[in-house]
């Protein structure tokens, strides 16, 4: 999802007998559905995993400004421009909430950002794909935010209090994001032939990357068992992906567009859609840095950061002067 590459200790889950007294109490609290708060004792692995997951999620929000920012100056009406700006502004706000949640675990936002800029920290693979026509603004809101919502709604139940509360705030805003995206898709798919072609093109390009947002298949994500036990993760990758496909395919049909997967069909027995695997080789290439936009996205964030250094320093220098004057 927004944190697709969270590696945990990978040692498998300890049994209650193998746990120390502290670990056991901790697991009992989690199993009882209690929230863990910043000052509570927590295993090192729990803290580390959370920091990685929350910061990757935060980085995704921040880098996620770029693909949609790409069309703000070309939005076709004043209203569309305003909606898109408000949406992207929300994403920046989500970045702030998440960085704050990560800071409660004893890391600093500055360090997290350094890790993003150096390429050490990851963000969601989806934002390494380009936005090539206006319908992409529809497809991103509908599919990308739609997929994010599946995950984030579940994460409201995550065990770490500040993360869970950030998810509650974020989910309130996300439904607007998905709705405005679907609204653009409706306009485009019921518009002129050119608009409909844009809508189909956007869907074709973003469908598979959206499926990849949920991460590798459960069989290949060996590290998620511990995260599930700790309720850092509350849904497996495949469960999330299935949920997303089940809700989205009927919407594609409603729009009168073609599902980009010829194998997709409803299984009447299970009530779920069957669908093809995305190209996992492509997914791992994107994670490695070989997606179509990895280099450009990081360059843009680095440029913003570097060009803004004098601004941040200037404000700090002013604050220092004020402090000295006050003494």
């Amino acid at each position, binding site marked *: 999802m927004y944190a697709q590459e969270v590696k945990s200790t990978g040692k498998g889950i300890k049994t209650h007998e193998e746990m120390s007294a502290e670990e056991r109490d901790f697991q009992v609290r989690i199993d009882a559905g209690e929230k863990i708060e910043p000052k509570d004792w927590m295993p090192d692995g729990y803290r580390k995993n959370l920091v990685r997951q929350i910061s990757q999620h935060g980085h995704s929000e921040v880098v996620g400004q770029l693909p949609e920012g790409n069309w703000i100056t070309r939005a076709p009406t*004043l209203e569309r421009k305003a909606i898109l*700006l*408000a949406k992207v502004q929300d994403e920046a706000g989500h970045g702030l909430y998440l960085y704050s949640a990560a800071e409660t675990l004893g890391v600093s936002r500055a360090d997290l950002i350094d890790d993003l800029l150096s390429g050490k920290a990851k963000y969601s693979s989806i934002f390494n794909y380009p936005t090539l026509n*206006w319908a992409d603004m529809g497809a991103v809101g509908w599919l990308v935010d739609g997929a994010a919502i599946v995950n984030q709604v579940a994460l409201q139940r995550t065990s770490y209090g500040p993360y869970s509360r950030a998810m509650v705030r974020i989910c309130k805003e996300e439904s607007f994001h998905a709705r405005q995206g679907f609204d653009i898709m409706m306009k485009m798919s019921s518009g002129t032939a050119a608009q409909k072609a844009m809508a189909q093109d956007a869907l074709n390009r973003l469908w598979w990357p959206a499926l990849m947002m949920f991460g590798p298949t459960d069989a290949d994500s060996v590290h998620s068992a511990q995260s599930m036990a700790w309720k850092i993760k509350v849904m497996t990758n495949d469960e999330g992906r299935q949920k997303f496909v089940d809700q989205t395919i009927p919407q594609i049909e409603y729009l009168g567009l073609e599902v980009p997967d010829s194998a997709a069909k409803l299984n009447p027995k299970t009530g779920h859609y069957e669908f093809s695997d995305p190209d996992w080789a492509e997914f791992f290439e994107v994670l490695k840095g070989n997606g179509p936009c990895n280099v450009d996205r990081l360059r843009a964030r680095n440029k*913003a950061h570097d060009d803004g250094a004098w601004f941040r320093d*200037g404000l700090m220098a*002013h604050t220092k002067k004020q402090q000295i004057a006050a003494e």
Partner: protein
Amino acid sequence: MFEFLLRMGDNTLVLGHRVSEWCGHAPVLEEDIALANIALDMIGQTRLWLGLAGEVEGQGRDADALAFRRDAWDFRNLLLVERPNRDFGHTLMRQFLFDLWHHERLSDLCLSEDDRVAGIAAKCVKEADYHLERSKDLIIRLGDGSAESHRKMQDALDALWPYVGEMFSDDTLDIEMNEAGIAPLPSSQRPRFDKALSATLALATLIRPESNFAQMGGRSGTHTEDLGHMLATMQFLQRAYPDARW
């Protein structure tokens, strides 16, 4: 009246667009959010002014038709607002100079004898008030910040100064608007502007340029080269797909 409304609406349209160009590229996340807010306010104000302009014109053009289907020579914005972003210092200084003028302008327009103009101005002035407070605060902190931030802000002020005079020049349209009780002469705002400007610059340790030379033309449709490029981007979809509805 139509032209007067274009002058108001094109300023916020063009400046809102320039500010929106920063989206995702600001020096800190908080600034991404703040700039998006300002751009949103500007777009909202544009819809009010250009919406009324279309009504007054009575040719069936709405705010979008005016924003996306006119060429540069029909734009009536100040040259100041179309100046490119360059760096964050230019962007903030341009905003400050505009806000200082805009806030005074809107305050005056609240007293317009035209109820529609007064109504829009009353809505916009609250936002302009907030923008001006934010702009002043940043100009002071960066002017009186580090040596580098001071230099950047002074450079920006020097570069943008030739575009200040146009805000206060009166032409025949201004005289008509003044006589009709719709809008006071722009020149009448200058003393208040100068006073407020000096106060902020003093706190910011910035120096007001001496030259009084003013670049003119925006308000009558003769723009800088930059506006054409901006419109090429902004109007692309409406121009390339004229039959589409968005």
